[in-house]
């Protein structure tokens, strides 16, 4: 059985830096400008726009503090398609999907093909930001904007911060 690809937590600006794809065995990966190989992602952000570009194909714009990603849902992901219809922007969503680099009217851009999408709450959003930040720091990437936001949020009393992440990520 093919090993299931782990869903990476990466920020929008990293996803948007992808310009190339590589094949490794049967799997295809997008490459970020920092050289990170990305296949599946788990991303949480604000759904800003939702448009039906063709019957049965939806284009979404989802933003985290570092930028926004372009995501697509089509008939190939019937479950995600079903869910998208009922979700109205603006709202916070959690998504899983695969990053693909495509050529779009002469420009090479990364997009995300969604596999699942669901409405989430602020707690999940903050938790995701913390998690994605920790993974980014592990790759020696500083995302000051997210650090600032988390510091601000920390002053408000959020439930998720009671959980000791450092213990879990050592």
């Amino acid at each position, binding site marked *: 059985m093919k090993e299931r*690809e*782990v*869903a990476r937590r990466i920020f929008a600006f990293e996803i948007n830096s992808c310009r190339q794809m590589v094949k490794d065995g049967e799997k295809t990966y997008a490459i970020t400008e920092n050289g990170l190989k990305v296949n599946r992602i*788990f991303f949480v952000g604000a759904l800003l726009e939702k448009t039906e570009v063709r019957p049965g194909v939806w284009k979404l714009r989802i933003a985290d503090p570092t930028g926004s990603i372009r995501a697509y849902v089509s008939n190939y992901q019937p479950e995600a398609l079903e869910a998208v219809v009922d979700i109205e922007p603006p709202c916070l*969503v*959690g998504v899983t999907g695969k990053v693909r680099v495509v050529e779009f009217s002469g420009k090479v851009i990364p997009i995300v093909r969604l596999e*699942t999408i*669901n409405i*989430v709450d602020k707690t999940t959003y903050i938790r995701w930001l913390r998690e994605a930040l920790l993974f980014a720091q592990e790759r020696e990437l500083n995302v000051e904007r997210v650090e600032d936001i988390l510091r601000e949020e920390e002053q408000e009393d959020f439930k998720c911060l009671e959980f000791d992440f450092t213990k*879990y990520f050592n």
Partner: protein
Amino acid sequence: MNSELILVVPSSYSKKPSKNLNAINSFYFLLFLLYLIFIFLSQFSSEVVGMNIEALADKIIKAFPDLELNRNEILQKLKLLVYEFRVPEDEAVRTIKAWIAREHGKIKPEAPLVKIGELSEEYAWVTIEAKVVKVWNPNNESIAQAGLIGDETGIIKFVTWAKAEKPLVEEGKCYRFENVVVHRWKDQFQINVTRTSEIVEIDKDIQVKENTIKIVAVLTKILSNSGLIKRCPKCRRAIRDLCPVHGKVQGIDDLRLKVVFDDGRNTYDAILNEDAIKSLTGIDLQKAVEIAKEQLDRNAVLRLLRERVLCKYYEVEGVKVGRFVLVKSIRGC
């Protein structure tokens, strides 16, 4: 003339046999010499490899401390198998042990008492003291009982064959599984309780090393065959219309989710049963059946569950059995 004749005849008679006798004697003598050489050689050769045979015989005798065994007889059998038939030594020992066991009633060689974590060799006969962690409904007529037993070092699957005619065990109790065979099935070790095994309840409380997994992870996918499913009433398999073993059956409803948890480093395939789903979403089997009836669609339950659980963080605790983590407790966070 006469006397001479008389003299000659007997003398010729007496000479002839004596010559023959000599020839025969010398022939026998030669044979005897050859025999001596043969004895000498065979002594010599058996001295070179014979050491092994002696050790093997001792090993066999040691395995039956209660019996008075004829050492020479065992040696002879060993020689026959090892030198004459060129059987591998361990095979020979195993065979002779089995012969002795059969001869002396059903006394099996004492299988060593081992811990589950130490099991590494297939087809080994062992004795295990363990607590019954889980008992499954057998899905095959030839199996009387199957489940999981555990001790301080690990958990292992056990199968009691129907032919073995052994007592059934109960969850939470401790037993001594004597003379069970270690088998490898789908890359996992299991023990088989056979006709020559014994299951004895023991008055001990064995602490089971739980193969528990504690993770904080995102539920990233719901796998197929989830939601409101039907099971075969005989074997509890999840089915669509037909049970692969029992054919056309009236399926019974059940609620379960097969999901993937992802913590950013690893993925875990997990199974949520009705209790876990209820604690997470408030939806139990009864409610699920109602929802399906109301909307005239069994998939409505799955849609609702997807909406409730997907893409969120959970603290999950479960026991890993094979590929799946059986979720014992789950909490959104």
